[in-house]
């Protein structure tokens, strides 16, 4: 279980808390949504949960242990802008293999074509690149996936494709998924429960 207890974060001591005393639990296979207006700390929450930022207060535990400081992190974060999450000088084949060799099943499920492998990131569309990032994040030791507005820039068909794959994987591999989005309809459709980020706090609903 991914568990955050009394979590708080602020950018510098003179800044207000983006969220404070936040308790959150995601069980394997569960899909949890996070919504709220811009600037309320949704992305920051994802970064703290994935170990990108150290929490100001509280802790993030996975099965009762802190997140590993080194080695493959079982909590993987997917960014809103995939073009910033890949090395622009690497070809797609190298990007996909950064963590481990993706299985042919994952490549096929995500519709990653072999013609893409010899291309550079700027030669792929946003939707194609996001699927590459998703394939890279789905290493064998990944247990929780934090999706930070991963489909907000994509067309409806690609959105459906990506979410269908994520939902299927969550079910088959018992992946815990955190869906961050402005789109309340999307969250209502995908998630079993929702967290609303309000100013300085987080309300569970």
């Amino acid at each position, binding site marked *: 279980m991914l568990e955050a207890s009394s979590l708080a974060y602020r950018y510098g001591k003179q800044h207000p808390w983006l969220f404070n005393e936040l308790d959150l639990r995601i069980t394997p296979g569960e899909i949890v949504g996070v919504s709220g207006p811009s600037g309320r700390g949704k992305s920051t929450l994802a970064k703290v949960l*994935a*170990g*990108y930022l150290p929490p100001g207060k509280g802790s993030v535990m996975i099965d009762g242990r802190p997140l590993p400081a*080194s*080695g*493959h*992190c079982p909590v*993987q*974060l997917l*960014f809103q*802008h995939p073009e*910033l*999450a*890949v*090395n*622009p*000088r690497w070809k797609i084949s190298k990007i996909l293999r*950064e*963590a481990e060799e993706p299985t042919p099943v994952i490549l096929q499920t995500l519709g990653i074509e072999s013609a893409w492998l010899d291309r*550079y990131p*700027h030669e792929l569309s946003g939707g194609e690149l996001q699927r590459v990032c998703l394939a*890279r994040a789905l*290493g064998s030791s990944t247990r929780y996936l934090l999706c930070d507005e991963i489909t907000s820039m994509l067309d409806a068909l690609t959105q459906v494709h990506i979410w269908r794959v994520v939902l299927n994987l969550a079910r088959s591999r018992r992946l815990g998924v955190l869906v961050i989005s402005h789109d309340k309809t999307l969250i209502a459709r995908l998630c079993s429960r929702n967290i609303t980020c309000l100013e300085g706090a987080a309300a569970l609903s």
Partner: protein
Amino acid sequence: MTCSRLFDRRTRTLLVIIGCLLFFFVVFLGAWLYGRQGEVTNLTLRKISPGWGQPFGTDWLGRDMFARTLQGLRLSLGIGLLAATCSAIIALILGLAAATLGKTVDVVITWLADAGMATPHLVLLILISFACGGGAKGIIIAVAASHWPALTRVIRAEVMQLRTSDYVRLSRRLGKKPVWIARHHLLPHVVPQFLVGLLLLFPHAILHAAGLTFLGFGMSPHIPEIGTLLSESMRYLSSGMWWLAVAPGLTLVVSVMAFDLLGNNVRALLDPKTMRE
């Protein structure tokens, strides 16, 4: 059909590299074959304008200007290459140190780079070359010690931006160790800046080497460096001996432009966005 339509970026860069290497080879081979012939006076062949026998003419002492120009260019290219390499290596070390060794080191190196950039270039070159006793050693130290700030700032900014980029932070969360990240993400990103910086420093260094000698702070007057030839020619231009300045001047311009073209092509080739043009 233009050259850019006829050949792709890789072929064009390859052609420029071959051209530059050929130019280097011809200059060094020519200078070696002619030996010290450019310093031999022949008073029966004084002040001859360019023609079949003497393609670059002869000077007021009957010395062959072609041999002198080749010898001068060989010296300039050698000095330029050495000075640019030293300067680029200083820039790489200081740039990486500023970006990775903490705030104090960064502040000191940034201040030094700012001070170097704020000081008039030529004054700094003259002072350092003079303090080092002139000659090839003085020129190399002066150019190397005064040309690192711009490239240092570029490398520092690249590494700093890269360290906080999403894909480098993500690489850590994918289990990659700092050494692996430095080798696969940071260094390949800085190498093109370093190579292009070095190539673009090279023509600068050649020009400054010639400039310092022209002003009398570089090579000794009896050594036929391009700057010496240009400086000497000034006294004879009014008497109609235009070839004394035109031939060495043109070869200097051509070599500087060739290496500038090489630098720009390599930069475009190493940039994934323009490499497939």
